[in-house]
Structure formats: C-alpha cells, structure tokens
C-alpha cells in the first residue's frame, strides 16, 4: 500500500533555469580519480 506522505517526501523541487548556470564549479565535485590521487599522495607522505 502506498503511503502518500512517505512518497511525497521523495519528491524534491526541480532546479530552476536561472539557477542552473550560476557559479557552476566542476572542481567541487570529487570523483574516483581525485580519491585515487589523494590516496597516492598519502602513501607517498608515509
């Protein structure tokens, strides 16, 4: 049985077009390569 309130919580507001291009900074996102570089750096320092 579907619980309306619980399902409703899963819905998030959509990003508006005006906000889409504001200060988009790709470097803020961390991917696996960034993690790998960090790990290798730590190993080196050790």
């Amino acid at each position, binding site marked *: *049985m*579907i619980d*309306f309130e619980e*399902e*409703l919580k*899963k*819905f998030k*507001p*959509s*990003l*508006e*077009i*005006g*906000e*889409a*291009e504001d200060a*988009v*900074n*790709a470097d803020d*996102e*961390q*991917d*696996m*390569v*960034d993690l*790998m*570089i960090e790990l290798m750096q730590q190993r080196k320092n050790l």
Partner: protein
Amino acid sequence: MNCYRCNAVLDLKKETCTKCGTDVRFFKKIVYASNRYYNEGLVKAQARDLSGARDALKISLNLYKRNTDARNLLGLVYYAMGESAEGLRQWTLSKNLTKGQNIAERFINTMHRNMRDMDSEAHGIRKYNQALGYARNNAKDLAAIQLKKVVSVHSNMTKAYELLALLYMDDEKYEQARKVLNRCLEVDRGNVSALHYLNELDAMEGHAGIRSAGVVGDEEREKLIIPVRFRDYGTYLANALYIFLGLFLGLAIAWFVVVPGRVEKELGSIAERERSYESVISSLQEEIAKRDLEKENAERESHAAEETQPTVQEEEPEEPKQRVPVIEKLTNWDQNHAAVTKAITALYEPEGADYVTFTETFFSISGEDLGKGDAGHYRDLCMAVTDAGVFTDLYMHAQDALIRGDYRQAAGLFDAASLIRPEDGMLRYNAAVAYEGAEDYENAANRFWQICVLFPEMEQAEDAKNHYLYLTQETEVPPLPEGEDPASYRQPVTFEMLTAGLPAPEDAAEDPSENPEISPEEMPVPEYPAVQPESPEGAVQPENAPAV
C-alpha cells in the same frame, strides 16, 4: 586519454606516462570503468529507459568527472525528462571542464537562442515546484490542477506525471492514475516510480484483475467457470417491464405533482405582473381621463380665449415621459437578469471558466436594476471579480495562451484581466502584444495607444508609442478625447465600488411598478465610470480611430 598529472596523451599500452613517468595503471582502470557505464547509459538512452541511462551516467561521472561524453549525454537525458535546468547545468559543467570543441557549447547556444522555449521550460518548472509546495501543504486539489496544466504543455516532464499519479492514487482515482503513469512510461520506459505505482495499482485491483484477466491458478480457474444454463427469456421480459413501469411512474409523478406546481408558480407570477401592469394602466387611464376633463373644461372656457389651448396641448407630451421609467426599468430588469445568469454560467463552466464572456457580461450589469434574487447573485459575482485567486487563475490562463502561441485567446484573456485590474498597465501591454501576434493590428494599435495616454510613466510607454506609430503610420500619438479623465480609466475595481449602487437585499423592490413615477433624473448615477466594452476590444478609443 590524457595523463591526470601533466595532461599528455597516454600510450594505452604502457603503464606509465611517457612524459612525466606517473603510474597510470589505476587511472586507466577507473577511466575504462567510467566508459563502461557510459556505454551502458548510451544503450539505455537509445532504448528510452531514461531513468536507467541517468543512473548509469551518474556512476560514470562519479568514477571520472571529466568524461565529457557521459556528461553531455547526461545533460541530454535530463532535458528529455523535462528537467531542462539540470540539463543546462551538466552542459555548463562540461563546457568548463573541457574547453575547445565540445558539443555542450552547441546545446547551450541552442537553448539560449530559443528564448520562448526556454521561458516555457522555466515556467513549467516553476509551476511544478509550486504544485509540489501545494501538495506538501495539503492543498492537493490545487496541486493536481497545476500539474495537469504542466503535463499538458510539457508532455515529457516525468516528475510531474509521477506526482500527479500519486495525487490521483491518494484520491482513489485509480484509472486516471494509471493513464498518467502509462504516459510517463511512454517518455521514460524504465521510470522506477511509475513502475512501482503501477505495481501498487495492480495489487490494489488484484482481485478484480484475477477475475477478469484469466491469468489464474487451477483453483481460481474452477471458480471462474460460469455454470451453463438456459437463457431465461421470461426474466428479460420481466426486467424490461419493470424498467418501463418505473419510467412510466416517474413520468406520471412528474406530470401530476411537479409540473402543476411549476405551472401554478408561473401563472402566479404572470398574474402578478398582469396586476401590476393593470394598476399602471389604470393609473395612466385615470390620468388620461383627468386630462380629458381638463381639456373639456379648457375648451369650454377657451371659446373666448384661444390662448389656453396651447397650454392643454403643451401638457399632452408629458404623458409618454411618465411611462418611460417603468418600461425602461422592466427592460433593464430582464436584461440584467439575463446578464447575471450568463455571467454565472460562464464563470462556473465545467470545462473551465470562460473568463472573457464572464468579464464582458459582468461589467454590462447595472447593479441598481436588479431583483432581490439577482442582487444576491450579483453580490457573489462581485466577490469573484475582486478575488485574488480568480484573477491569478485568469492571468495564468492568459500567460499559457501567450506562451503556446494562441494569441487570439491570450488577447481576449488579457483584455478580461484589464477589466478587473484597470490600474495595471502591463495587462493592456500584454494584450497589445498578443493582438499584434494574432495580426489584429487595429486592436493592437488601440491597446498601445491606451498605454501612451493612460500610463505614460510606464517603462514600456516609449515602446508602446513606437509600436503605435509603426502600426498606424501616424506621426504622433493622439491624446485622450477632451473631457476624459485618464485617472477614471485606471481606478481600481473594489467590491465596495461594484456594490455601491446595489440595494440591500431586504430593500430590493419586488416590482418596479410599485413606484412607477421614478423619473430618469432621480435615478442614482453609478460612481464607477461605466466604460463598458461593447466588444472585447475595449471602449476607450482615440478621436481619430486608427486605420490599419
């Protein structure tokens, strides 16, 4: 593939960078994994499983954020799902990460070039967010209305379908929910929420489904076997007979009980009117008899003095004047009653309010000439006209029409809105733009002229002037006709103003013939400048009408 440290092109067969010597084994593995998820996303996108494609591409980018192809494709998938802003965000990120030849730049430029589509997308997203807010505040009906508008214009917005289906299911409108979910799945075949809700619907209707679908186990199959029996024609006849009997009884009750009551009521009102007319006629006949007597007396006296005859003759023309107020009042009553009925019908249309007819009809009603019943209805209509929610709905209809290119309808709706809010010049400006879009240059010129003479302080006044001069090929904008006050055309419409001349319900006259001697001079003048449009185009005109 480029080295993550020095950005040199890597030799795929070697484990280190040929330029800086960095160990790139793990780096290459991560990039290959990212590419695998990209390929998976591509296949799913081609199969219209947009949700699946989105998830695969997000994993691809979590592994390697500089995977330009994956990011561009993700933007495209978001765009296809009706989330233009997210799509634009991904393309902007892609452009920042990969300078130079990048297809994302083309997508962004295409979006910016089609400003109308972009505005429409932005509008749809705003409405969706509004609907979500309504749903969270328990205004589910408003949310559903808003979402229906969104999906009618943005048929690829999967989130809107999901939320609308949820609202329908909460309201137990399962068939409608199913239709909406199926439309969602046409856009995005793998939409998880839609599939989940459909499964729930199937589960809820499970018993009925088993009975009708025939996909059952052995036990249920036995229950489904309909026992064979002969058709009982007698039962059919009996049923038919009962139905006809029921119809006959219903008609009989209507004929003998309901109709006489109505007929009697009608006859009563006709008789009352006859009596009122008779009293008017008899009073007029008395008046005529009185004047005949006076005439005779005057004639007798005037054998010697011929000057008295003109006095009698001068008095005669006064008779018709006394009839006019009564006849005019009766005519006004009938007209206003018809207008009130028409306005109510237009406002409460089942398919959606016909605001153009409603506003035209409403502003043609004269509040002083209304019977008791109609005065009450008119009061309700005044509340509707001054209600912010009604205006907002009308305005949104007008905006929608303008955005989808239905300029004729948009123009009518903006005209209707400007009747309700005459102080808002932007409504007339929007009407002008819409008329121009519909190639109705005469009305467009008229609205632009209204902006020039009534709203000279507006930011768009200069633009309106240029448009007017261009459309009419005149050299200057004609002023308002002499004696006309611009402020009177900008006066806000309030409930108090609309009901100012309205008699209080307990004071409303039942019948104008009770006071047949009301002269036109004694009738109160309405405060509201009743510049009522005879046509939807508006009544304000320059002295020299623009000829386009």
